[in-house]
């Protein structure tokens, strides 16, 4: 598994749609350009939702998504 230099970790385990995406947005707003937010979620929908969100939204880039046993880990970089 690739390791990323993570600036902050957001734990939304147990939370459901729309919270993983909404809280990711709120948290990434606090980061500086180039920094990476790690998002830990248990919502299986977060795989598609966070990907779609990052694709459509300016200023963010989905670096990677990893599917663990019960936890989906997402890495989102702030690009502007």
């Amino acid at each position: 598994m690739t390791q990323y230099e993570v600036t902050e970790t957001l734990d939304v385990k147990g939370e459901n749609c729309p919270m993983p995406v909404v809280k990711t947005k709120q948290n990434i707003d606090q980061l500086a350009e180039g920094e990476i937010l790690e998002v830990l979620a248990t919502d299986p929908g977060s795989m598609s939702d966070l990907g779609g969100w990052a694709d459509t939204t300016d200023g963010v880039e989905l670096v990677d998504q990893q599917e663990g046993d019960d936890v989906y880990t997402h890495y989102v970089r702030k690009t502007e």
Partner: protein
Amino acid sequence: MSTNTSQAQGEDVPSRAELAARIDELETELAAATEDDSNPKMSIIATKGTLDMAYPPLILASTAAAFGYEVTVFHTFWGLDILHEERSKNLQLSSVGNPNMPVPNAVAALPGMDRVTTKMMEKKIDDNDTATIKELIDTSLDMGVEFQACQMTIDLMDYDEDDFYDGVTTGVGAATAIQDMADADIQLLI
């Protein structure tokens, strides 16, 4: 066959310099028109106040805000109850008229059955860690979603402007909603 360009330069034919100037002018206008980097907009009209129907506008509004949309949600008729601080805590789920309910309509119509199905739904929401209505409203407001309470229905329902959550816009009507819809990239009636 060659074209005689000097012949084409009659009196009403613009000169090369004029054309160049016109192109510059149009390019500037085009740049101004396409440079519009304002955020995309979404306009939702929320008309329902049952527990199940309160979720879609709030989920879509908060999610669109996360996508960078400027969102307005215009609440009218029973949709007002979603913004009503007291009533939003007691939104009900109807047990009748929904064939997906596990009870037949004849039973569902008995007094108190709405309360039972609402409790069942609230328990499911809680067990599933689904966000509450209050949580979604707070989050949406925090993300800059504008909630508007239709003035005509506030008067019709005999509500007071102070009954609504802080940050809710009152004193707006259909014209405001139309204006928002006209400007919006996404318009929804829920």
